[in-house]
């Protein structure tokens, strides 16, 4: 479909953005994990933990960032031009979700390679399981990116996206430490998809997958955010 093709092409052509999205988590991972190759964290080797964490960080940025493009296209006024074509909301959303994931996959692949280089050993099913859980856990972030892209003005969007990712990362334990392991703070952390994304590495090693709680958190965020995204999408036809 032409719409999907050009959506992807436009993203790929934004070279600076692409390079930053791919390079930032990789550089962070290599610089931190290379010094702690033999440490353990939360029951698993530090490189695995931190590889997962940086994969989550990079992939969260990757899948939420189409929101920035949506806001730019709205600001340019062309979004309204699209709304008077027969393009339907489902097709438009599907394209944006696909583009978001296509950006996340190379981010994951690069970090896996770097992880393997630093001695992360996982069997084929464990790699697949890890990837599968990450892709599922990213769904709420993808939808959040869409919703914010249609809701916020372009000036507010970049700080908003950055702030949200950093906050989710901090509370989810992406930076290599957990803010809490019990109490109300821990309850808040466990209600966030980013926490369960980081836990995907542990789950993949244990072989058991996510606990039911993780699935519920991810599903709840998705179920709440999809109608929000649809509503702001439909409202975003006003003159800017």
């Amino acid at each position, binding site marked *: *479909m*032409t*719409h999907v093709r*050009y959506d992807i*092409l*436009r*993203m790929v*052509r*934004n070279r600076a953005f692409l390079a930053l999205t791919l390079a930032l988590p990789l550089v962070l991972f290599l610089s931190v994990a290379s010094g702690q190759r033999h440490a353990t964290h939360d029951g698993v080797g530090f490189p695995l933990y931190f590889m997962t964490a940086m994969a989550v960080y990079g992939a969260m940025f990757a899948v939420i960032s189409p929101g920035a493009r949506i806001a*730019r*296209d709205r600001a*340019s*006024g*062309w979004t*309204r*031009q*699209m*709304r*008077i*074509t*027969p*393009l*339907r909301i489902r097709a438009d959303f599907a394209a944006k979700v696909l583009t978001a994931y296509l950006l996340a996959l190379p981010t994951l692949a690069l970090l896996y390679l770097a992880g393997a280089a630093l001695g992360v050993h996982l069997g084929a099913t464990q790699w697949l399981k890890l990837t599968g859980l990450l892709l599922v856990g990213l769904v709420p972030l993808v939808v959040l990116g869409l919703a914010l892209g249609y809701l916020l003005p372009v000036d507010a969007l970049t700080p908003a996206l950055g702030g949200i990712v950093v906050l989710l990362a901090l509370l989810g334990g992406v930076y290599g430490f957990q803010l809490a392991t019990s109490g109300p703070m821990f309850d808040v952390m466990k209600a966030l998809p980013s926490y369960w994304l980081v836990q995907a590495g542990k789950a993949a090693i244990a072989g058991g997958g996510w606990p039911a709680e993780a699935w519920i958190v991810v599903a709840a965020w998705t179920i709440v955010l999809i109608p929000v995204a649809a509503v702001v999408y439909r409202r975003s*036809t*006003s*003159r*800017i």
Partner: protein
Amino acid sequence: MTQSNDHTGGIVLTSLSKSYGSVRAVRSIDLQIAPGETVALLGPNGAGKTTTIDMVLGLTRPDSGSISLFGMTPAQAVAAGAVGGMLQTGSPLDHMKVRELVSLMASYYPHPLDVGDALRRTGAAEFAGQWTTKLSGGQAQRVRFAAALVGDADLLLLDEPTAGIDVEGRREFWQAMRAVAGRGKTVVFATHYLEEADAFADRIVLMSHGRIVADGPATEIKARAAARTIRGTLPGADLAGLVALPGVAAADRHGDTIILSCSDSDAALRPLLGAFPEIRDIEVGGGSLEEAFLELTAADKLDPEVVR
């Protein structure tokens, strides 16, 4: 009006209204356009042209009234690919070349024109390989025109399509437009250039302050414009009472001066004197459509509702 009431195949606007806060952008307009007509929405800035077009396109929700496009709602007509539009604002998507953007727009429609054909007709072929962010204002306007044309929709709505184009570009634009209208499409365009409306439309719908103050063939409008604006001194005028007079389309106040935009100033004059005997310094604006139009534009600048 010369049109019949059987317009299920065309465009029918009924009692259409839209306000933004206290600004009444469109005030209960009725309009019927038959398939194949080329109609100019003529009016000064702030007349409500864009608001009307945006409502017809389904981009703005009316406060009240209804819109039928070929028997469909705007949303249905848009979904069916029956509508093409050139909006007043909107710069082409970045990270794309001109040809790609027009192809993208074509891909949404069931029976689009050939992309090369659309580019040629709109004069955009020369820079089809250019990045959309590297275009001059006039070039961007042509790309917008190509994007509106390429879907080959039955109804085309163009909001000030020649804004920012030089004289030569305008001539080319209207040539291309004529070819489109010649293929049986219904074309509605907004403009504040009288000459454009006069030269390219079968029919002119004159808007002012959210109302339709005249509607008919350009010649008929010219005739009516001979005596269409009444001015007078009337301290503390009751605008609602003035608007209610026969033949009065809109009433505005500037200090103690009232300005009545009339569809029929003869019909308005007698009851005006009867109902407001204290009115002084009455002038009935005459002359050309140009003058009538300038009059409206001037009144617009003074209208407190517009200034606010």
